[in-house]
């Protein structure tokens, strides 16, 4: 039972093969391969500096990998080689959206405007690349109304409707995280990549986030790939966990399998910085959970 292999039969939406990324003399990612399956919440975990964010940046085109192949397979069967696309086309055509580890809001725009910016490409087309819209053609007005409705929908999901007309920079931290996710969803993605969405959230905000993520998956069937530091969050919501350490994969499977994997436990204990205590705590927590399930 520990060696979970049922996921192998699933349909992969993203396959990363032999990915390597070198910064000067540092091999940040070394021959890393994994697959994310359609409809799953896949978690990429690992100690600080393991290279998780770098993997995301390669997937979303912000870095060009030194080696390797990243394939995105859409529902329609269309395939994109992401390492060959410029970053904005990855969102536009391949339908991969992302958030950032340190939140990137348009802080001077309102919450609603943030979500409208995310619908840029759709609205550009509706406005005839601005020309028809400037002349007041009705098609743009209609599209504009629809875009506000879509924004309202995601604001409701993220429980941000009350703050829709406030500047995004005025929101509390947890709300900004949810807004960033809602904004990414407004691009209409098939794969949503979240970089440490739960970092810095208080327990209540964490709960709201989990709800939002589950809601997204249940409603749109969007596959989610998330980086997480907090093991308890990962174990609760993910279907599939990949563990990275020093740029290499050390474990891959369902949450139960991963948290019992001695290599994972060692990796988390092996962290040498000031976070040791935190990690020990997390592992104890996991082991506590394990004991409970064994009963």
């Amino acid at each position, binding site marked *: 039972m520990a060696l979970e292999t049922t996921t192998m039969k699933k349909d992969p939406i993203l396959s990363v093969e032999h990915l390597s990324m070198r910064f000067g003399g540092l091999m940040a990612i070394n021959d890393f391969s994994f697959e994310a399956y359609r409809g799953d919440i896949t978690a990429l975990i690992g100690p600080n500096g393991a290279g998780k964010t770098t993997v995301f940046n390669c997937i*979303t085109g*912000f870095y060009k990998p030194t080696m390797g192949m990243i394939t995105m397979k859409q529902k329609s069967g269309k395939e994109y080689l992401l390492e060959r696309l410029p*970053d*904005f*086309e*990855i*969102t*536009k055509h391949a339908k991969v*959206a*992302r*958030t*950032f580890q340190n939140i*990137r*809001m*348009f*802080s*001077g*725009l*309102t919450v*609603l*405007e943030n979500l*409208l*910016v*995310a*619908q*840029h*490409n759709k*609205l*550009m087309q509706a*406005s005839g690349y*601005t020309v028809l*819209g*400037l002349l007041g053609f009705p098609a*743009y007005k209609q599209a*504009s109304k629809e875009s*506000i409705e879509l*924004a*309202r929908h995601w*604001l409701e999901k993220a429980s941000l*409707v009350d703050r*829709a*007309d*406030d*500047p*995004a*920079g*005025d929101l509390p931290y947890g709300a900004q995280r949810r807004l960033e996710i809602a*904004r*990414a969803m407004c*691009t209409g993605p098939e794969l949503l990549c979240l970089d440490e969405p739960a970092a810095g959230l208080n327990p209540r905000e964490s709960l709201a986030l989990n709800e939002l993520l589950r809601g997204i998956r249940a409603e749109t069937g969007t596959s989610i790939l998330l980086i997480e530091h907090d093991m308890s969050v990962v174990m609760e919501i993910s279907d599939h966990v990949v563990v990275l350490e020093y740029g290499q994969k050390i474990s891959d499977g369902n949450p139960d399998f991963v948290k019992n994997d001695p290599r994972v436990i060692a990796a988390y204990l092996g962290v040498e910085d000031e976070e040791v205590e935190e990690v020990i705590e997390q592992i104890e927590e996991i082991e506590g959970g394990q004991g409970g399930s064994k009963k």
Partner: protein
Amino acid sequence: MANIASTSASAGSDLTARALREAVFAGLISLGLFVLFVGLKTDQNIRNELVLNQRWGLLAIFVIVAAVGRFLMVAYIQPAMARRKAAKAEAEDVVKEETFFKRNFSKIAIAALILYPPVIVALVGVQGSLKWVDNFGVQILIYVMLAWGLNIVVGLAGLLDLGYVAFYAVGAYSYALLSTYFGLSFWILLPVAGILAAFWGMILGFPVLRLRGDYLAIVTLAFGEIIRLVLINWTEVTKGTFGVSGIAKATLFGIKFDASKDGFAALMGLPMSSAYYKIFLFYLILALALLTAYVTIRLRRMPIGRAWEALREDEIACRSLGINTVTTKLTAFATGAMFGGIAGSFFAVRQGFVSPESFVFLESAVILAIVVLGGMGSLTGIAIAAVAMIGGTEILRELSFLKAVFGPDFTPELYRMLIFGLAMVVVMVWKPRGFVGSREPTAFLRERKAISGSFTKEGHG
């Protein structure tokens, strides 16, 4: 009861006493400071001997100004400021009721501008109106239009452009050269000048796309200089520093503004005066400026305008949302340049003469200063700033009474830049985000709330 009254009364007299004391100190200090600098002056007489001039009157003025200034500061200004601060803190939560004037400011301003020429003519006569319509009206409106054009690049897209005057030059020379060599009419060349300037905006845009902040500013500055140097050195076409003169005037539906018998004045049965042409130019530049404002307002509500503002806020986030930042930046450069070009061709038709001298870096700096002073992104603020800066410098030419104060050698124009700089420093200290620091959202769900300037970013190039 009596106690309270007496304390407040004694507080008042305390204040005056303190103010008097400080005024005396200030006077003494300035006396000590200036007695040698101002009170005594060494000069050479005709025989090259050193003589000591005594200027006790001037010294007295210095001392009195310091003492009276200090008295007013302590007795009135400081308490007033403290009161205002307290009142402001109290009124913080009270929602400000906007006055009728404030709400309809732009409509009232447009109406006032349309009525401006007839009112001036009625007040000072046809001939007397020349100065007010041309020097003040047209001059200010040209800068309003230029600043609104630059606002698209700097205020909305957050790309610092120090060479905006280049597009103004391209527009001016496009009209000057195409009308002299090919005899094309103003109304055809107006859009042509805009398109040519937009084209040059793209040309500038391509190499600077990868640059940000300071680097972008320097390259745009260099671009402005290149255009000017080309205009100076390409003498076969542009006649170099001599400039192009005798540029054809604009016509109104084919009616010329000259002394001929089918000219405007003759047709209307009016005595011939160049003022009619100036009034016509006033309405023309007013229409062009309003077109700029209208297009800017419309564009802000379009996806492209929102993308510009998003680009100013965070470029990486833009790319993560599938926005092509290259084309977005290029369109911002091109749109801003187009309005600069149109303003340029208007400038050429108004002056009847263009030379590279009109397109120096200082012009770019003034236009940028207007945008920053007005509040980046705010059309109203920028218009106010243009009136203050350009109108202010024009008024400085008029202030001949200053000669009475500073002596007959004083030429107010020479102090223009000094006063100009001082005013900018004062305004930026007083309102760091410009006259209008808040931003109007382009869409809303429930209510439109202005966004405080503390949330918006200036862009990073």
